[in-house]
């Protein structure tokens, strides 16, 4: 970079201060154009409000804690977390929830994006309408669907009964509650996944599609051999964002079921809140550490895998 700069600068500027070799001086000046203190304000916030609490959580998770009083108890919180079936179930629910939501967002988001980048009547309307749910707050969506999914008077089961189907108690059946909430999560988040996929598909050079058309490839073959592999970076983004969101999900579950009925839709994030509310700060923080470990353990291999694939293709 210093080299290019020396070539660009006219001689009279270069020689203004005699003695200093031009390239070095220019090089130094180029470096100081990007001052390191630009990092400081962001770093200060990050360290104080994010890094310090994160590191502190490892210590506080080993304590019985009332915010004022810290009593070291070793691994008891973790033992309690994993031996209490109500708490440890949340661990499993979190994984199930994240897998369902991100899987469906990938499949449906890609399908919708393919549809919305093809020539289709009402394309603008369809793009807008799939994005609308993103704008409504999660709490608003949760409360709305809680009413829509009411087992007796709800609109969804009302519509099903027209076809002679006895709709289930979506949020009141312990076997269904978690899945119902996950489906609503997909309904709400699909717009983002679709938008990312649209951006990815639009970036594919048109020549590929033209060449395929000349060769007489079927729509499925075009999708299988061009659209899907070349939108791999978009798939990576969707998977990573939806997994992070799914593993940490709290708002929607809290608005719709509060982890119930019983503990059938409790996830780690809702356990953290319940323990916090009950004043068990140490146990709550232990939940945070468990969530931290789960997220890291899931995200690192997946992001390595996705990066490797996108380098290969």
């Amino acid at each position: 970079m210093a080299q290019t700069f020396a070539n660009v600068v006219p001689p009279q500027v270069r020689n203004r201060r005699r003695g200093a070799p031009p390239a070095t001086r220019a090089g130094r000046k180029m470096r100081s154009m990007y001052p390191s203190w630009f990092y400081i304000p962001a770093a200060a916030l990050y360290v104080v409000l994010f890094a310090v609490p994160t590191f502190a959580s490892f210590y506080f998770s080993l304590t019985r804690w009332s915010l004022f009083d810290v009593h070291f108890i070793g691994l008891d919180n973790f033992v309690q977390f994993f031996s209490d079936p109500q708490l440890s179930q949340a661990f499993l629910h979190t994984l199930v929830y994240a897998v369902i939501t991100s899987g469906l967002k990938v499949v449906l988001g890609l399908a919708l994006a393919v549809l919305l980048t093809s020539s289709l009547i009402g394309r603008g309307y369809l793009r807008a309408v799939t994005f609308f749910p993103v704008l409504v707050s999660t709490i608003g969506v949760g409360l709305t669907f809680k009413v829509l999914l009411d087992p007796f008077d709800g609109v969804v089961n009302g519509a099903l009964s027209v076809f002679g189907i006895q709709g289930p108690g979506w949020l009141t059946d312990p076997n269904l509650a978690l899945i119902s909430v996950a489906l609503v999560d997909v309904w709400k988040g699909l717009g983002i996944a679709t938008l990312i996929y649209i951006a990815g598909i639009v970036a594919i050079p048109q020549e590929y599609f033209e060449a395929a058309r000349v060769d007489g490839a079927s729509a499925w073959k075009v999708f299988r051999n061009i659209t899907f592999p070349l939108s791999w970076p978009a798939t990576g983004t969707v998977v990573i964002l939806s997994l992070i969101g799914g593993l940490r999900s709290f708002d929607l579950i809290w608005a719709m079921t509060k982890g119930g009925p019983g503990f059938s839709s409790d996830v780690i994030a809702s356990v953290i809140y319940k323990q916090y509310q009950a004043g068990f700060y140490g146990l709550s923080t232990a939940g945070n550490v468990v969530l931290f470990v789960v997220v890291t353990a899931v995200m690192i291999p997946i992001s390595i895998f996705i990066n490797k694939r996108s380098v290969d293709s």
Partner: protein
Amino acid sequence: MSRLAVRRWTVGTIAIVVSVVVFLVPFAFILVTAAKTAPEASTLSFSWPAEWKLWDNIAAVLADRDGILIRAFVNSIVLTVASVVIMVVLAAMVGYVLQRKKSRWNGIINFFVLAGLIVPPAVVPTIWVLQGLGLFKTLGGLILIEATFGLSFCILLFRAFVSTIPRELDEAALIDGAGPIRLFFQIVLPLLKPVIVTVIVVQAVAVFNDFANPLYFLPGDANATVQLTLYAYASSSTSAGQLNLLFADILLITIPPLVMYVFFNRQIVAGMTSGAIKG
């Protein structure tokens, strides 16, 4: 009509019908329920209101508990504007230097940025820190929290976008005698406008709609945000059988994000496609 045109129409029509059922019905349900009288809303049916009471219901919601919703609106707007401004300026500074300056720290900084995106914040220890700083249960504290938690995402977008701005511009500005601060604020920042719009819209919607952080870090009625009041309202209005007011509330607080989207729709997609979302 050619076969292609027939397919265009049939697939399009099916997609429109499905989208109406899946996406528009829930929105229409919010709207018609918000316009009903209390007894009619309590039947939960998806039907045209017998009497159109939308304005009365909105007025009733706004008047509830001495206009707590209006105060919550003011709080939410202050929170959103302040935290998004902090996020945009600080993240743009970091994204810019991180992309431009190659140093051995870059790897570590990138790692922390990614960690900020992935790692779930430790809630109670954060409260403990805020309490130590005297910022717990204050709007200022929540503003800093929202700004901090949003930084990573913004930095990634800015870093990707800065790489599309030619370095020659920096050099030209330097020759013209601009210092680093003028270079950034007068030359680079205006050029970042497309991605700034994207960041503002995405983060403003996220902060305005956020529930978990206000719940933890700003509890209490005194300075509640709109999402907290909606949540509190849900329990009180359901027990009182006033679903019409609950839905009027949902409708009311969805308006600001909707307005933002209508205004900036094109720019969001443009900012996303111009290199912002790439791996």
